[in-house]
């Protein structure tokens, strides 16, 4: 409603399309094209091939896919449990102490990932806990970086649940655990799904901390992609990037499907 004339609208839309196209769509398209290209000199790629994807399937690259998936799922689950637990515990407290603690749980998202990686490297290369060179340290790094987002999501969801539900449940005879299981958690389920999805996406793309702490046997996709492109093997890198994007989007889509089926039933 800012622009009324047909020509004006067209001009604005073309401008928007240009912006979106150049900034967002072109990069995606280009990587997609490169992943199928034999070589690329000049404006267009040439030599259509599946070779890069085949290579992505076996050997080191295949292991990287597994490592990223495993890390993503485990770290996201832990982050979801921890974040939801903290959100529930703080919500029933209220008051100044709860607010301060709440901010504390957000701080890990503010600290740069490389510094988190460095701190874990330093802390767990010495007594009392020696985790240097294990896969556990990678899980911990991802967990620390993404737990704040689960906490934020679940807190936001809990704030929108009317206290009526839990009060009536309590009055009818539900003990706190029963109430949590049968009333509170189902009511925030969409936020739990969203939190898991976001955590997983962040974990899949995490590079800064991982590159500081990863053991040789546990190479995640971002680290593998960097290794490829650093050597100049940019086409394989592109293919592996597309694999990463595809896996992430596939899981997000699956989560959204499950979540919407649930909300359909109750909200219509």
């Amino acid at each position, binding site marked *: 409603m800012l622009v009324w004339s047909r020509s004006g609208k067209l001009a604005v839309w073309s401008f928007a399309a240009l912006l979106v196209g150049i900034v967002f769509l072109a990069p995606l398209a280009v990587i997609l094209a490169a992943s199928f290209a034999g070589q690329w000199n000049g404006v267009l790629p040439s030599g259509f091939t599946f070779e890069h994807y085949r290579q992505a399937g076996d050997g080191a690259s295949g292991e990287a896919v597994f490592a990223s998936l495993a890390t993503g799922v485990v770290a996201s689950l832990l982050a979801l449990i921890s974040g939801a637990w903290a959100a529930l515990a703080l919500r029933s407290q209220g008051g100044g102490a709860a607010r301060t603690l709440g901010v504390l749980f957000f701080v890990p998202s503010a600290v740069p990932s490389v510094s988190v990686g460095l701190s874990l490297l330093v802390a767990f290369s010495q007594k009392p806990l020696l985790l240097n060179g294990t896969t556990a340290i990678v899980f911990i790094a991802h967990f620390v970086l993404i737990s704040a987002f689960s906490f934020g999501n679940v807190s936001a969801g809990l704030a929108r649940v*009317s206290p009526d539900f839990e*009060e*009536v449940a*309590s*009055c*009818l005879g539900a*003990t706190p655990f029963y109430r949590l299981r*049968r009333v509170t958690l189902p009511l925030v389920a969409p936020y739990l799904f969203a939190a898991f999805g976001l955590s997983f996406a962040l974990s899949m793309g995490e590079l800064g901390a991982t590159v500081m702490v990863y053991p040789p046997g546990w190479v995640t996709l971002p680290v593998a992609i960097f290794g490829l492109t650093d050597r100049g093997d940019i086409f394989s890198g592109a293919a592996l990037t597309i694999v990463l994007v595809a896996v992430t989007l596939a899981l997000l889509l699956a989560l959204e499907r499950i979540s919407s089926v*649930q909300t359909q039933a*109750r909200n219509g």
Partner: protein
Amino acid sequence: MSLAAFVDEAAIASGAAELRGAASTVAFDRVSVAYRGAVVLKPLTLEVAAGEILAMIGPSGSGKTTALRAVAGFVRPASGRIRIGGADVTDLPPYARGLAMVVQNYALFPHMRVFDNVAFGLHARRAPKALVEARVAEALSVVGMAPYVRRYPRELSGGQQQRVAIARALAVRPKVLLLDEPLSALDAQIRRSMVEEIARLHGELPDLTVLYVTHDQSEALTLADRIAILKDGALSAVGRTGDLYRRPPNRFSAEFLGRANLLSVVVESDADASGFVAVRAGDERLVVPGADDRVGATRLLCVRPQNLTLAPDGAHSNRLVGTLREIHWQGELTHLVAQVGDALLRVVATRLPTIPARGERLEMFFAPADASLIAEDADV
């Protein structure tokens, strides 16, 4: 549907003794509640008899909801004890008190069907499956929602949801049923039919003690056996509905429970054998019920608008004279406002033989028994 089956569960499960909710009393014993330093409920002492409906009414901030939440256990009293069925429950958590609650926004669990909603309290208290099914079926048929057992709350209208919420509360046979403004979220028309529903329910379940909080005095007048009027965190008046309405003890209850005309009068004679005194209002001499009123005392005469009539007959022997200021016809009723001395009197008439004009001299009549006297400073 047999109410006897609803009441008798011995044939269904022997181990469900704790679910046999007998009518219980509720007692507030000097219960006070504070919130962030401010007193929200001043020490309240009040008893609810077994099987009665007590309505707690009052304006916003009167403390009525706080008192209800104290019984439920959501609010911890700063002082005093709460007893249900004689047992001190003040230290018990809400889920251990054997109560049930219906709230303004229904709070039906959206992720459960009607059946699971109604069965919720029973499942939470670990009732055996057979008992659950029987109770749910009975509760739903008592509120007339049996065909909707497999629906989700979102598929029901407001009135239907509230019925399911009531069924959910009834299914656990609570010692006391708590109702927190249950009809406030409903349309006026649905509200009227729901009030009648609740009255019918209470008739069919004489064992049910009900604590009913509302700001709507007409709901209280229809449903309650006794009414407690709260104001600014304290009890202003309490008594049987009829008594409270016909003989309000103070100005606030006179004006809050129904509408009242209040006229300043002076007592002229001692009480006679049948308990009437003579009072003077301006030039008029009126005969009204009175007992402890000594000669010369100033009182407020309270007479309800619908008890004033423009056509005299033997029974309406008291007369007031004024000037008609306003007249509004509203279909079922006609509202008139007349000026008598300094006061404005309201009259509600169902039938008017002639329509008086504004500015006319108006004579209004009422029967002695339809009025009462209030001591001006009797405001708690």
